[in-house]
């Protein structure tokens, strides 16, 4: 088994864990963490695909995409945190209370 295969399988598992977390976690912060884990899975799959040809250099295009992707994911996570804290400030809710 090659290194890139291990990590591409890991990336699929991480993505599914993230999706499950987005659906099933209740607290806002956990939902945000779940989205970041989903993003991590996607980035891991991209980088592991870049490493699959055993050349001197790995494919630089996915690396560049992942670098911009990480920074964008952080900006969106910061926005989500701001929303969550604002909702908490105004209503005192820590999660979406649909099932009440």
């Amino acid at each position, binding site marked *: 088994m090659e290194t890139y295969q291990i*990590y*591409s399988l890991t990336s699929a598992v*991480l993505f599914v864990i993230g999706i499950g977390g987005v*659906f099933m976690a209740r*607290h806002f912060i956990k939902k945000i963490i779940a989205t970041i884990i989903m993003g991590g899975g996607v980035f891991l799959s991209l980088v592991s695909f870049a490493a699959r040809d055993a050349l001197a250099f790995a494919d630089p*295009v996915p*690396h560049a995409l992942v670098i911009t992707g990480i920074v964008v994911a952080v900006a969106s996570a910061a926005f989500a945190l701001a929303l969550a804290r604002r909702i908490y400030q105004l209503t005192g809710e*820590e999660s979406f209370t649909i099932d009440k």
Partner: protein
Amino acid sequence: MSVLIDIILAILAIYLALQSLLAPRLSQSVFLFFAFGLALALAWIRLGAVDVAITEAAIAAGFLGALFLDALRDFSVSDTEKQENTKADQSLVSAKNTNSPWLPRLALGLGLGLFLLISLEAVWEIPSGGGLTELAEAMLPASGVEHPVTAVLLNYRAYDTWLEIGVILMGLLAIFAVGGRELYRKPVMAVQDPLLRQVILFFTPVLFLFGAFLLYVGKTGPGGAFQAAVLWGAIGILLHLGGWPVFAVIPRWLRQLLLTAGLGFFLLLGFLFIAGGNALFEYPPAYAGFLILIVETLAAISIAAALTAIFANLNQMKETPNETETTT
């Protein structure tokens, strides 16, 4: 033999991701999530993506950590209160929620299982070959830099990078909109502890120098604008935490200039290229190296300013919202 490292690292990453979502307490899940970031940073190195590893290390250990610790403080106040009152943990996953129906959860579990199988199959079957490695290598002499990742970021796909700086700025504006009040206040309290002040004063120039080093070294090896930006943003966060909020001290026009310099200079350059008969962001090879260095520096300054502003805004969020006017 070295595959063993990968297997352990992969198991560690999956375990940390799972536990950070399943942990009953909020502080557990946040700190396990930091550990997940560090495990991921080691995974990037194993895959040969040193640039990504530097970015991930700086983001996971620094910026996101600070944001989540700050947010955790707000939420954990109620966490302890609820613990005392009801002993029921609010942050549990819905699996422990007794009155939620079982059918949707079963369907969700089945769906996730199926999805897991499909995605495992998909990543296993991905065909080898293709990719843009040779093309990126072949065009390297014309790009003005010697490191392929930097060449992709700032020359071949400069359009993406430009819009990406825009996305960060948009995120900042959205946070302004959510916050909805005067955002940069004078410090409430300065640092009392002499050692803490010395630590901040020592690490500020160290972070600045190392960021500048990464920016410069990005031309030939792993490093570049984003890594430098996160480190420089950490300077702003440190100073803010130490009671010297840079953004409250500097005048408003300078603040706006810092935030938009990267985006603006990129755009100006694009228009100049079009006026000179090239396509948008098609650097003339003779000046490419020099122009890329300027663009990188300005982009790093802008992103660092945006990250500092994001942290400053989120940090001042819990103060009671009574004023309604906003300034940027």
